[in-house]
């Protein structure tokens, strides 16, 4: 359970930092009226949707941290046999990076008001994300034809489970991306379009980060890394 505890420590650190800016030491029973610093404390200057997405990403992060925790605990048992990762995953990783980059370009273009670049970026991101999902499915097929079936070893089970869960999140993101893309074509208000693209980009970058972490986990580097850390500490 150490992975989830470390994750929660990060969350607690962030929450603590935020709370420390909220005048928790004030004596509300002595203070009446309204002043500048009260108004500034009403809400963050960030758009509400971004904060909402941020909170959601914390929940998603928690979910994958828990899967990782479970992975390490199950891995310690004797019947674990790591499976060889298909080389295709490297290509998929590249495609997902491309998708994230395309969305980042769209986001920058939206800030500059270049609608054509925005459209190009959005479509590229959508297609590459779809390509990533197809690539993952092909990787699943490859593994299962080689005999690495879901239930034959816990390492396989975790591989399918975690990549599947990540894929579902990408699929959900594609719904949002689809709506934003449709908005770009149907002439949505520029500020609304920009917010939509920024939200998509945020989500995409986060899922890319999650994928890289999962990849490291499934390839066994994460375990090696933790071993090294543990040896350094002891």
């Amino acid at each position, binding site marked *: 359970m150490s992975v989830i505890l470390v994750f929660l420590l990060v969350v607690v650190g962030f929450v603590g930092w935020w709370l420390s800016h909220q005048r928790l030491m004030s004596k509300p029973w*002595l203070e009446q009226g309204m002043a500048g610093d009260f*108004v500034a404390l009403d809400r963050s200057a960030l758009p509400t949707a971004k*904060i*909402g997405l941020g*909170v959601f990403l914390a929940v998603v992060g928690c*979910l994958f941290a828990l899967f990782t925790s479970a992975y390490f605990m199950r891995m310690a048992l004797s019947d674990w046999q790591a499976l060889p990762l298909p080389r295709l995953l490297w290509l998929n990783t590249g495609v997902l990076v491309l998708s994230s980059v395309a969305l980042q370009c769209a986001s920058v273009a939206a800030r500059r008001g270049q609608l054509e670049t925005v459209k190009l970026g959005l479509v590229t991101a959508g297609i590459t994300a779809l390509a990533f999902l197809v690539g993952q499915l092909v990787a699943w097929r490859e593994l299962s034809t080689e005999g690495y079936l879901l239930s034959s070893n816990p390492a396989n089970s975790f591989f399918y489970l975690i990549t599947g869960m990540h894929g579902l999140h990408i699929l959900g993101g594609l719904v949002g991306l689809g709506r934003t893309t449709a908005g770009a074509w149907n002439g949505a208000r520029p500020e609304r379009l920009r917010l939509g693209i920024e939200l998509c980009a945020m989500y995409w970058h986060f899922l890319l980060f999650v994928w890289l972490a999962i990849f490291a986990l499934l390839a066994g580097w994460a375990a090696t890394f933790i071993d090294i850390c543990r040896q350094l500490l002891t």
Partner: protein
Amino acid sequence: MVDITPADAVPPAEVGEMELYHPHSWWTKYVFSQDAKVIAIQYSATATAIGMVALVLSWLMRLQLGFPGTFDFITPEAYYQFITMHGMIMVIYLLTALFLGGFGNYLIPLMVGARDMVFPYVNMLSYWIYLLAVLVLVSSFFAPGGPTGAGWTLYPPQAIMTGTPGGQDWGIILMLVSLILFIIGFTMGGLNYVVTVLQARTRGMTLMRLPLTVWGIFTATVMALLAFPALFVACVMMLFDRALGTSFFMPAIVEMGEQLQHSGGSPILFQHLFWFFGHPEVYIVALPAFGIVSDLISTHARKNIFGYRMMVWAIVGIGALSFVVWAHHMYVSGMHPYFGFFFATTTLIIAVPTAIKVYNWVLTLWRGDIHLTIPMLFALAFIVTFVNGGLTGLFLGNVVVDVPLSDTMFVVAHFHMVMGVAPILVIFGAIYHWYPKVTGRMLNEALGQFHFWVTFLGAYLIFFPMHYLGLVGLPRRYAELTDMTIMTESAHHLNSFISIMAFIVGFAQLVFLFNLIWSIRHGREAGGNPWRATTLEWQTSETPPVHGNFGKELPIVYRWAYDYSVPGAKEDFIPQNVPGSFGTSKEPA
């Protein structure tokens, strides 16, 4: 007295008003509504309905325990199904949904001075997914093999094996799917509650001016957002084990002389995941209760809450600590002694902020102008019950005391007192308190008195004797114990007595339901602010509040939520949206 600015120097709002969805038809106004208040009522009604099912299940259980062998239709399998469904419904589908989905939806926007939740559409989806989860759960009663009988903790391997009711039938699958749906729905609602508190507070409503109710619900929601994923992971993995033959939790096992295809899995892994959710869940239910009870006590004792800051810190502290105590549910599963020591220590440390809260409630009452209204009676009953249940928690938090008491009726008595009866008492108090705002009419006082005394005294007569049954060694989760030596004649009589009390208390709840429905039309007219309370929900221009909550202008907040009995003020309460200073507020220590 620090009056920071004169009343007329209010800076203009920098953020535009949110755009509300305006319903066009009866369907979008009352059924597929995006108004948080309607969603709150939908949540509450659904939770109450499924809660009644759980109440009936507890009656059936008590029939079997109190009068074993009398009722043929209660087979041991059926008994296991009753206890499982009773526990699961009460903890998740009733308490969590009612506190966060019900009270959270109704009170957060009103109390922080917002027009609505920040993502109304997602909020609506949240309710409909919750309803779907409930329907899936209910459908398991009609599935072949009936609902699961694995105990509310659903421990593998037994949860998915043949001997357990529903283990190899539909029961467990429907249970897991329902939980997964519930978590998805809750996450949608939870995002709303958190972001509304963060972003939709009206001008002047700083965090330290929030009523403690909002603090409680807010912190509980943050915890739930971080804890429910653990249950989600556990459910998904168990679903894989059951439906796809993986071995996450399933060890190599022989069932009915046949070797199952599973091998090598770890049931302890499930326990870690389950309790990583399960312990915070206790506080997900308790923190909203803490918050609400603080407001009830302050309002009905006409006195500011004692130690507001400490109350806020304690809520946040309890929330954080509750994530590092989960393994105290697993002492008997076996663990390294140092881990046992660690978890016993963290468990006992939680008693510190909790005790601070209890002292502060009592000190708020001290020399207050206590009105023994029905909400106040329930609040007082909560304090007593919570202290009682909390003290037995100190027993069970210690490894050496827990091991002999584990899985006895003592544990049942403990958790029913502390997270069953105590939060339910707050829910009742809160309903009596806010019902006038929701409907515009008061609940009937005489029926309320009857409901309170029967529930409060009755709950003690049910659960207090259970401690003794546990101490003499009566185990929980056994359908029948008549032949065992520990089942003495007196223990048996006590069991019958508990069963009769359970029926009486259950009957009182029917009276309460009748009161709820009858008072909608026949209750006394309440007016906008019958309790003369300070918080914003009582200051709306219309009662019940309309869509958008407040009139043309959102209220502006000039003070904290607890200006009761301020010396020099004309009335004994000053609403949060009244500017100016009135004498000196009594300063809490």
